[in-house]
């Protein structure tokens, strides 16, 4: 799959920070079986830009983040950081890598150590990553101010159980920033939080992105938040990227049938007429009943979405489509884009095809 012809919509924001080139990760399960969690995934992260990785649970998005964070060994593929291939072979290498690339986890309830205070959680990475001459105490206070945990003094001695979910997640952000990274991988950073504070956390992340020119990977299953927060959206299904493009375009005129399903499934209060309360099921473009099949064997034949796809035919069951270019910045992996998204692909034949806003 050589989709490098598609330029990232995030590229305009800043210089290239990290490249993921044909990443694959298989998990062995039992004898002779493997789960292809990530299959031939390529994308770039740019300083000061947000790339969103969107998909359902089990689509491989978290595994992709863990590969980039060095938490998981690649089965194949290459990761480059600032143009240099990443090779982690010693503890020192790993620590140096970690000082550039940090990961924030989904669950602030389990990612902080319950027996340590906020001060401990923040002092440790400062000492580890900023060397002996760092003014640790002052640095910790600065970090807490950056994530708006103020007054800092009040929070330093607290234990995780004394903090709300939002405050805990702020500590996680501060901990990640303590290493002064250039790349921040945020794995569902707000999905465990209340709807009312999600926005605040996202705007905090956005503020941090600007202030430190972070290259950010935002992993989520909520494509609506990706619309607001990200520059580019990558839609992942069964370990593959099935669609990519500028956030606004992908959410407003989705090309791949799976993206269309995701968009149709999002709660839509502005469209009460056709809502659930009408009684029946709203017919999405595809059904949700099947689970993605990325196990070894016959199931991996063809496009991974074909069992759920309304447009699937023999070709889809036989061959897995590569990402096909739709425009300079968009691509989708589907054999039947002409049927699934006619307004996008049949450019010369149709007038007024750019329905994006």
């Amino acid at each position, binding site marked *: 799959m050589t989709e490098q012809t598609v330029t990232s919509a995030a590229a305009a924001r800043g210089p290239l920070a990290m490249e993921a080139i044909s990443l694959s990760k298989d998990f062995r399960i039992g004898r002779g079986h493997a789960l292809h969690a990530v299959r031939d995934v390529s994308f770039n992260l740019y300083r000061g830009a947000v790339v969103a990785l969107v998909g359902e649970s089990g689509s491989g998005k978290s595994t992709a983040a863990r590969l980039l964070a060095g938490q998981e060994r690649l089965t194949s593929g290459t990761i480059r950081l600032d143009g240099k291939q990443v090779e982690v072979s010693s503890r020192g290498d790993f620590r140096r890598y970690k000082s550039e690339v940090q990961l924030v986890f989904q669950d602030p309830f389990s990612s902080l150590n319950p027996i340590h205070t906020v001060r401990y959680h923040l002092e440790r990475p400062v000492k580890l990553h900023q060397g002996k001459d760092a003014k640790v105490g002052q640095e910790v206070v600065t970090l807490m101010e950056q994530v708006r945990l103020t007054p800092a003094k009040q929070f330093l001695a607290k234990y995780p159980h004394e903090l709300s979910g939002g405050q805990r997640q702020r500590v996680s952000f501060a901990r990640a920033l303590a290493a002064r990274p250039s790349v921040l991988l945020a794995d569902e950073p707000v999905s465990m939080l209340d709807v009312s504070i999600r926005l605040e956390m996202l*705007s905090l992340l956005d503020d941090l992105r600007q202030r430190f020119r972070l290259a950010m990977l935002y992993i989520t299953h909520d494509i609506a938040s990706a619309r607001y927060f990200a520059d580019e959206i990558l839609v992942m299904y069964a370990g593959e990227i099935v669609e990519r493009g500028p956030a606004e375009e992908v959410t407003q005129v989705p090309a791949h049938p799976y993206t269309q399903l995701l968009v149709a499934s999002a709660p*839509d209060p502005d469209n009460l007429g056709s809502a*659930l309360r009408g009684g029946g099921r709203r017919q999405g473009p595809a059904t949700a009943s099947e689970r993605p099949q990325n196990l070894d064997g016959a199931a991996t034949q063809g496009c991974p979405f074909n069992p759920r796809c309304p447009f699937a035919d023999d070709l889809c069951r036989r061959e897995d489509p590569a990402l096909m270019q739709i425009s300079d910045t968009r691509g989708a992996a589907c054999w039947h884009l002409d049927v699934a998204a006619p307004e996008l692909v049949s450019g010369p034949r149709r007038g007024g095809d750019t329905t994006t806003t």
Partner: protein
Amino acid sequence: MSADPAADSAIGRADGRALDRATHRATGAAAGPAAGSSLADAVAPGPGPVLDIRDLSVVYRTPAGDVRAVDQVNLALGAGEVVGLAGESGSGKSTLAYGACRLLRAPALVTNGSVTYRGRRVSGPADILKMRPDELRRLRWREIAIVFQSAMNALNPVLNVRDQLLDAIHAHLKMPRDEAHERAASLLDLVGIPRSRLRSYPHELSGGMRQRVMIAMALAAEPEIIIMDEPTTALDVVVQRDILAQIVELKDRLGFSILFITHDLSLLLELADRIVVMYAGQFVEIATSDEIHREAAHPYTRGLLNSFPSLRGSRRELAGIPGSPPDLGHPPPGCPFMPRCGYARPECRDVDMRLLPVATSRDPDHVTACPFVLPDTPAPPGPSAASESPAGELGT
């Protein structure tokens, strides 16, 4: 609701089986506060709500004093109705529901109120808060079932699906073995899981399937009321939508009522008939979903509405709700939302949080606890451009 044939047939079916139960319950109902109720109440659901919560207060007793988790709330759930209870974590929405069913343990304490249950199968209204343990046992699951948030933790990992369902069936219904087996299988049919899954264990099921099994279990004894406590929060959107559609379908078919608890107001707008917005243990606004969507009055409701990014329509300026909920051990005087409210003014300290009809609304049942802000009050100056909801887009 009761006009459609599906609901009628459900009533007929339930009545047939409930005769023996009605006699059982007669003594219990007589002990209740509303013992003098008319016969008509016992026969048909009538106009009275299935569940009527009055002046309910729940505190958490702590060494530092009482934390008022639920403060004098009134809530009625009609037959076949879907009421949504929305609020942030810690607003008391789960405590309210569990308190009404007497599922709370110390240090939680119901200090005040009554919870009247009027089911089709029971002989008369009865106060759940005054029930004896054996009466409670008959009420739970048979009349009021609950779907818990985390299906992974709520299901027993060492029992397969069939045994869990049988467990629920045998605990609450008298039924021969083979009939119970058939019922377990047909429950799975109801929620759209193939019967081949009867022998599966919870870990072999996807999150969505587990939640469906939970719903099947809740349906096991054909309850009148199902309380759903964030049933889809842990699921992703596609599965969530599927399950919600299934819930609505089952509700229309079987005619139960739903109390749906969630922090996601956008879900309720699509799902609920009526929405109750809760903040710091009190109700701040009650209205139909359409009213909430088109003309939310309370600043907190507006904040919630402005908290979720929308996929459709033009991008709007989103604000969220800055700050965090108050400490309920030491609640501030007046309106508890005041410190976070963009419309706040000195008089807010004297607000008594009584729910009054929204003056400009055509719906007299649209009530709000804020006496100052109306649906057409312009958004306060500052970064939080609160009410941007496109009022003109919806007809009717």
